[in-house]
């Protein structure tokens, strides 16, 4: 079951939930009253838009003119395709089959106008016919609420005693515009087809894809570089023209008998320069020698990011240089050692010494200010991996006790008194006593 962003109202319910009486538009509280064991998910409009676009992409194989009917529909212009497919039923069948293959549930409808098709599809009243009168009759039977009018005109129409879209069709057009609203008339006419309703066609999103076929099989990495260089400079040109960057390249090497070898090359930051890409690809190829001869290669880029204005640049451009050098270093290290091998240390906001620092994936240096050093507590530079029991009592106590008692909520409760103390060997240690009177060393001071 899916709820809206605020988590208050239900937007969609699965068949099992509907069986229990849960409906779209219901309040979450009511729904939980009906079925306390609901599985709840939050709606994600972005994801929805993305999924819709996904469907458009495959539908594009079958029809040239596609329009997105956000958030949940697609229009395809089919009248011009009748000849190609051999009639409407064939088109209908093709689409249905494509849906089945993809295991998708959808309601198909044909209409003489985009709105007609959409309304019929939304109400599940679609039929495989292009007969205008038939379609208009079907539309006429739809209840007012299903016509997709705005709430206010819809209420007004109901107050006039009208129940179906057909009742609205029957009213004289000028009266409708005058007494209700010109917009309402326009919608009605767009449904009926007496007013044009142009739709912007959907364009498949841009991707960069270049392929190089080799006349002779290439056996060594070296042999690929020339073609790669060409393709990468084309990519650079393309990126420059679009004023975009990318951080992911997909490289596929085709073999005669085997499945293609695929690489994903990731840069640490947005990148557009061919030699930057090439260095990374070379590192990758050096790590992994060719498993068999290559007959073709293709390079695909699907992710594009807008170029930001250079940030934090001083007059001499130094900051950026540093940043860039830092980027390059990280990219190279990651390419050479693997993404996992590289970590970045940072302070964490926690009283427990074990939890007061973290080693996380390398991230771009952010603009956020690090914690001010003087707000951080006095801690040893060398914190032991785990506390080590203290064998000999210190000879000298420098400071303490500092009591740390925290972390009950995640099962790693700490209750300790810390001291800075000098051990008999002369070392300055950070030692603590736990709540069972055991003594431990937790770190060393320089």
């Amino acid at each position: 079951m899916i709820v809206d962003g605020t988590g208050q109202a239900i937007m969609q319910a699965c068949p099992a939930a509907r069986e229990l009486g849960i409906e779209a538009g219901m309040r979450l509280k009511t729904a939980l009253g009906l079925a306390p064991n609901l599985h709840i998910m939050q709606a994600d409009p972005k994801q929805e838009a993305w999924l819709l676009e996904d469907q458009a992409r495959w539908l594009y194989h079958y029809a040239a003119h596609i329009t997105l009917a956000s958030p949940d529909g697609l229009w395809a212009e089919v009248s011009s395709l009748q000849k190609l497919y051999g009639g409407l039923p064939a088109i209908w069948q093709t689409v249905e089959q494509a849906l089945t293959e993809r295991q998708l549930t959808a309601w198909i409808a044909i209409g003489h106008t985009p709105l007609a098709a959409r309304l019929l599809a939304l109400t599940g009243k679609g039929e495989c016919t292009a007969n205008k009168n038939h379609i208009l009759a079907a539309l006429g039977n739809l209840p007012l609420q299903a016509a997709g009018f705005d709430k206010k005109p819809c209420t007004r129409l109901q107050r006039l005693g009208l129940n179906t879209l057909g009742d609205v069709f029957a009213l004289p057009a000028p009266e409708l515009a005058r007494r209700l609203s010109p917009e309402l008339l326009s919608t009605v006419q767009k449904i009926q087809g007496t007013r044009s309703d142009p739709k912007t066609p959907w364009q498949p999103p841009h991707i960069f894809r270049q392929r190089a076929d080799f006349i002779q099989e290439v056996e060594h990495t070296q042999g690929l570089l020339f073609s790669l260089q060409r393709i990468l400079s084309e990519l650079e040109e393309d990126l420059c023209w679009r004023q975009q960057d990318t951080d992911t390249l997909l490289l596929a090497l085709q073999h005669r008998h085997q499945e293609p070898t695929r690489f994903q090359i990731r840069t640490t930051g947005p990148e557009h320069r061919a030699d930057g890409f090439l260095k990374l690809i070379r590192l990758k190829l050096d790590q992994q020698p060719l498993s068999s001869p290559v007959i073709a290669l293709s390079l695909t880029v699907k992710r594009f990011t807008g170029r930001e204005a250079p940030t934090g640049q001083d007059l001499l451009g130094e900051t950026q240089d540093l940043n860039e050098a830092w980027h390059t270093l990280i990219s190279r290290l990651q390419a050479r050692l693997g993404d996992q091998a590289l970590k970045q240390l940072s302070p964490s906001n926690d009283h427990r010494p074990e939890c007061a620092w973290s080693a996380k994936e390398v991230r771009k240096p952010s603009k956020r200010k690090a914690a001010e050093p003087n707000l951080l507590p006095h801690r040893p530079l060398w914190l032991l991996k785990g506390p080590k029991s203290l064998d000999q009592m210190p000879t000298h106590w420098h400071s303490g006790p500092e009591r740390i008692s925290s972390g009950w909520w995640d099962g790693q409760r700490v209750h300790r008194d810390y001291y800075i103390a000098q051990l008999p060997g002369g070392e300055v240690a950070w030692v603590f006593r736990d709540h069972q009177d055991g003594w431990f060393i937790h770190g060393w001071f320089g």
Partner: protein
Amino acid sequence: MDTGYAELFCFSNFTFLTGASHPHELAERALELGYSAIAITDACSVAGIPRAWAALKDSPVKLITGSWFELDNAPTDSAVPRFILLAKDRQGYGQLCKLITTGRRRAEKGQYQLFTRDIETHELDHCFCLWLPPSQESATFSETLACGEWLLRLFEPRLRIAANRTLEVGEEQQLAQIRDLADHLRIPVVATGEVHMHSRERQPLQDVLTALRHHTTLENAGRCLFQNGERYLRPLPVLQKLFPENWLRETIQIANACEFEPGSLRYEYPPDLVPTDETPAGLLKRLTHEGERRRYPNGTPLKVQALIRKELGLISEMQYEHYFLTIHDIVAFARSQGILCQGRGSAANSAVCYCLGITEVNPAKVELLFERFISKDRDEPPDIDVDFEHQRREEVIQYIYQRYGRERAALAATVIRYRPRSAIRDVGKALGFDAALVEKLLDGIDWRDQSTNWRQQILDKGLTRNPQVANQFFTLVNTLLGFPRHLSQHVGGFVISAGPLSELVPVENAAMQDRTVIQWDKDDLESLGLMKVDVLALGMLTAIRKALELISTVKGTPFTIQDIPQEDPDTYAMLQKGDSIGVFQVESRAQINMLPRLKPETYYDLVIEVAIVRPGPIQGDMVHPYLRRKHGLEPVEFPSDAIRQVLERTLGVPIFQEQVIKLAMVAAGFSAGEADKLRLAMAAWKSHGDLTPFRDKLINGMLERGHDPEFADRLYQQICGFGGYGFPESHAASFALLVYVSAWIKRHHPAAFYCALLNSQPMGFYSPSQLVQDARRHDVTVLPPDVNFSHWEHSLEGPNQHLRLGLRIVQGLSRQGGQCVHENRPTQGYRSASELRTSAGLNQRDMELLAGANAMAGFTSDRHQAYWQLLDYEEPSALFAQEAEADYQPQPCGQLPQPSEGQNVLADYRSQGLTLQRHPLALLREQGHLQHCLTAEQLKTTRPGIPVQVAGLVTGRQRPGSAAGVTFVTLEDETGNVNVVVWLATARQQRKPLLTARLLHVKGVIEKEGEIVHVMAGKLSDLSHLINSLPVNSRDFH
């Protein structure tokens, strides 16, 4: 050497989301630890003081009143001052309250704001100041020093530096700085604990509160949380180890110098009411005798005369004259404005109050002994609540403000506390549980199911996978329950003082504009012995006043409550049938069921009727014994003469709160003081109190006195039931009077009764639709709203007293628009929609609403056409306005369908929430949808025990606390209401129809008890979809 210790810095949980212990917990712990004194120093507040004081009364630990402050700005080149002020004496306390008031009144509700100039300008020379120097990270030494010098200028020689030892990082440096400051400024250092909780075990809860305060989760709270749990009341040996001896000794010295004792606060009555040449006692006596002549024009009965003498004597002995005079003044104002009012509560139903006009309960008719209400033994103020008409109470409140000024009158606070839902939500939030999952948990919990295994629930619902956290969750929620969340305004409890109120108790802003509340609630006031006047709102008084006005119009002479004949048999006959919809207090379903069983015949039966359908008597199983005795099925016996005195009026069965308390004294040997504690515990039982300490004493006491164990246990059960729902006889007596008055009006002037009730909405149990249906069943003709006949209010029309619905019934219609329709109506009535629009000056929205209500029946053929006409409207330009008016001839639209009966019914419901046409169920029955279903009327003549089918609109779903797991559903059809009982198992299996159906079909078994008919539900089905098929006319089926 043992110097002792006084803790001078404690946050209680009245520093919201900071302190993690109740004031009384802190107080009790200080006592256990052997502290010499403890100061409660909440942030700009003394809200916790009365509770701590109550806990420490008669104990060796001294309570010091103080408050913590952080200013909003800093002196020049100085750190922001943070300090504690402690009241040295009564004067210091007044100064403290005044400062708090300044800070609170300036800020939004719940906040405070104080600047350096406030400290410089307020007199604070009777307060100690404990300065909390900033840490070295947050200020430089010179800034810190400047801050100290600023305070020194203001407070010398009463300034001290407070030193905390919380064993946190950087503490050594801070202590060194404090020593430096003490040297520089030459002021002593005093040890403090910066206490946030009474015991270290509260650390988890304190962390939770801190996380909530920072709007984050524990996991992300990081260093917002304290580093450890040292901010608790530590044992003396620990403190002696941590602090130098002279710092500890300083705490004792300050404590010794703080002499203010909250118990010394005495209410000073406003002297305004007594003329200079008269004594309060003289004035009260005079007013009483004046009232006497009014009440008893033929001479006061001897019995009453004696009563008055006795009461006046008692009042003057206790010096309560001002209290009675104050109430009399307010009531006299209401009378002068024609506002109906009625007093209730202890002391209200006395002969003096009857003469003063505070109550209408006539002491000559009812034997209520004043002595019971004012107790000489307990030194507590009398308590009178006065109910006023709900629509006009604001006038009374404004009068009080105007009479005493905002400086001297304010509302008491109500402390809003954590309840299970809010506690679970907040703890869940802090632990980072998914909010949706927490809601799921909340909805899944049966609150009355004591055996709910929380831990398992929490794990089952996937809130956490960590069983330890699940345990913690339970403990945290339980501890958080009853914690104060914020101060809200009491429904009507006013505190009025002689001097500025802000010197008695701090005043802060309430959420409502222009309302101020004091920092104490009514329990606090009571425990400190301060007096408050309750000015409450009661809808029924509005309705009664309006009904009396209508009756006066009909009769042509003024008709008042006093003119209503007493003990009218017809009225009681009506009540005995359970015909009580709309009647005050006895209109609920449970009461309607009780009336035919109790069969009230006299006023005193009504007093019992009001009190008996309450959790107390029901849980204590007092109802059935009483009924059996009343109808002579069981002998009335008294274990002893003492008990006979207490229980005689209620046939040996305790029903009222006073009786239970009195019984504890008479039967179990409680002293007056103990009984008083029991009463307080009963009142607080629901929120946080605990009655178990009284259980053994009560039961043993009764057994010792030879009562049988069953009786003892039943009395204890009843005390538990009374918790929070206690209903005292003194209130029931006043209510019963209104029951009688409203029932009499219903019986003898039904049209006026329903008209007045409808004009007083919202109030009572029933919707206008239900009231209108009941009116029609009582042969009142109800006419629809019509622009040519209706007023804004509902009214009575013609010699036959037809009830004409007013335009206010049209939902959404503006009051101004509705009134204009009536006021500007031409003598011959409106003749067209355009005339209506222009003459009444209505806007399009109001016009559409009136058309939708079919209120233009005089000049339109039906609501569809009316609406069609309205839609064609544009603001005419000024020049052509007249012309356009004349030209306009509405053309009916041929394409519009005529409304069917069903459409009209639905449209009526949409526009007015009721219909005067046939009931939807009648239409559905006619359409053949409800075959085999019996009507409410048919059920009355159906044999009990047989299976039946019923259907109706769901007008009520109730799960009363006194009936475990049972849901009562009320179904409405064209003949009346059907009561359906759904047992827990049935409800669980059929949640969907039970919770969502608007039109419900029930298969079940009919049961009868006397005239009460129930259907025990088996199968439930949702027929709501049929409602939408209503517009389809039966003639449409071909």
